[in-house]
């Protein structure tokens, strides 16, 4: 499939009026191809949740056009609902219903009757390893179990488009890896997934992503491309007195950011500087230098102009 699952043009959302108005999402253009895993990467408050809520029809855009699975939003929100799944940032199932009861409820809401519902909920509990907890109240589940239950509920009706709003913010790394395995399974079955995160390693797993900051898209594309076309070279410096060196470096125009990682200093040098290693030596003296492969975090730092560097 090459069609676009999500397409927005100048999507904007302003909260409040007059002097207190804040722009949560600022003229965002998106084009998410069907069948891909697309990521929203950005710090808290960058407009990820607001964007997702507009794309699900829960919020009305202040400006701009939105088309999701061929439906114009917010006009056709109701027609879109059966085709999308939404896993909210906060656990939104019922704490005082058991795992099985929660899934049963969601099944009924989506119009699954009788045996069909039973078969589907059993399948989901098996798939997401919830069978042993079927009678346990959802409120007493662990973070990882809650997350799997939410995913099961959001995918019960086999939506062709799935929205996940920071799905892994409350789970440990082990569970995060498993969770992504499930997402890849869904994706290989043709589900388009839009996932928001502030974890770099998660963003790196996406087929493509948009880096958001203060409601503005700073960069987008596949992670590999973003890293290659970053517009900066990454040089790691090791040695002594790195704190002091960092102070010197960040004042240079040619340097985007310098962040300490243990015994090394990770420095982003702008592409305008030719022969960056040689140029660097005037500041670093005899310390060993090494040019390394850029990470998505570097991309993020470059995209946001170093404002989020450590």
């Amino acid at each position: 499939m090459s069609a676009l699952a999500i397409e927005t043009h100048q999507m904007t959302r302003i909260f409040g009026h007059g002097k207190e108005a804040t722009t949560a999402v600022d003229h965002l253009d998106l084009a998410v191809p069907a069948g891909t895993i697309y990521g929203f990467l950005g710090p808290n408050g960058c407009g990820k949740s607001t964007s997702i809520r507009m794309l699900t029809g829960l919020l009305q855009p202040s400006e701009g056009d939105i088309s999701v699975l061929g439906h114009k939003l917010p006009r056709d929100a109701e027609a879109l609902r059966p085709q999308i799944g939404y896993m909210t940032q906060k656990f939104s199932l019922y704490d005082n219903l058991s795992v099985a009861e929660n899934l049963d409820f969601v099944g009924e809401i989506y119009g699954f009757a009788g045996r069909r519902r039973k078969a589907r909920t059993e399948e989901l509990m098996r798939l997401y390893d919830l069978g042993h907890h079927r009678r346990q109240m959802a409120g007493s589940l662990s973070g990882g179990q809650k997350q799997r239950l939410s995913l099961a509920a959001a995918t019960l009706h086999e939506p062709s488009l799935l929205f996940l709003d920071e799905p892994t913010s409350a789970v440990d790394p082990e569970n995060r890896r498993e969770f992504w395995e499930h997402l890849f399974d869904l994706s290989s079955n043709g589900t388009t997934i839009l996932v928001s995160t502030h974890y770099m390693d998660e963003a790196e797993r996406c087929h493509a992503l948009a880096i958001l900051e203060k409601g503005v898209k700073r960069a987008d594309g596949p992670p590999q491309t973003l890293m290659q076309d970053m517009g900066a070279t990454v040089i790691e410096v090791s040695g002594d007195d790195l704190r002091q060196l960092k102070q010197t470096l960040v004042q240079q125009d040619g340097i985007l950011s310098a962040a300490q990682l243990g015994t090394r200093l990770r420095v982003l040098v702008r592409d305008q500087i030719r022969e960056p290693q040689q140029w660097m030596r005037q500041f670093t003296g005899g310390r060993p230098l090494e040019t390394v492969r850029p990470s998505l975090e570097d991309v993020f730092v470059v995209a946001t102009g170093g404002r989020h560097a450590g």
Partner: protein
Amino acid sequence: MRVNAMSSLLRIRAIVSKELRQLARDRMTFGMIVMIPLMQLMLFGYAINTDVRHVPAGLLDLSQSSYSRYLTAAAEASQAVDFTRVYHSLTEAEQAITQGEVKAVLYLPADMGRRLLSHADFPGNNGYAYPSQSPVQPVGQWLVDGSDTMVAASLRALRNLPFTEVAGQAYRQPVPHLALVEYFNPEQRSAVNIVPGMLAIILTMTMIMFTAAAIVREREHGNMEFLINTPIHTIELMLGKVVPYILVGLIQVVIILLIGHLVFLVPIRGGLITLFTAALLFISASLAIGLVISTLTRTQLQAMQMTVFILMPSILLSGFMFPYDAMPEPAQWIAEALPATHFMRLIRGIILRDASLTGQTADMLWLLMFTLIGLVFASRRFKKRLD
């Protein structure tokens, strides 16, 4: 989009059974469904009494005669007052009233005997004051703390204590100028009127609060964000939320009627079908108001405050505490805008007078109207959106 009736019913059923399950697991709420009507009815059925008796009173007897002792005994025999204090001067008595020691003082002046003998009503005077040239004087005075009008009214009835016993004659029942026949509640027990009224008040409180909270709670807990993203229709959600509480309301009606009948001996004259039809109408109207509140408020605390905003006039203006007819006209208009007022009339009519529903069509239509307007307003206001 066309609504598929089958899946629509399935969705309503899903909400209903979920709601019932949650209710059954929420022990506190479940307990309150039963305990609120039980406790409040027991408490108020006993406590609320408009028939004022045993008011603490003082005695200032300057006459110290057999007449004064007879008159005091007659006052106490009425059970309206208990003489708990004795005073020796007028200033002392006045101070006692100001301090709140007593609600009233019976002041019998030193010349009480003379006043009594010359009084027109004294046996033997045959309605003539003696000596006839002097103006008729009362024999004593009730000094009353009039701030509580209900207490004052009952003391007013003690103005005409019979003189027969004072004169040493057998008590004669005075013949009233007009006879009074009490058709209903001949024993004049307050509980007979209070219990059906409590039905309206308790239902107003629980029904409005439960529905309002039921929807607002989902919003507070974040469940709503998931729910409004599903294909569920607003009206399905509303109906699904309301139906379980109709059941709750009916349970409360049964509890109140049982206690009212068994403990407070309230006669239930009307037919049960008539009674439950009226109750159902009122429950629906209250639930609809609860839904409206849920669309106007964001938190359970706000919903609670709004419920009290409706509850207070329902208690004070609906005719529960004070007679509707005694209120000024604007207050009556406000009362008409409360479902409780209409139900109060309906239910007292049905329980106490076996009034038929056909005679109270207007009140029933009002309740029906509240329900419909509430439902339409709530489902229009409720948006499957977060903004």
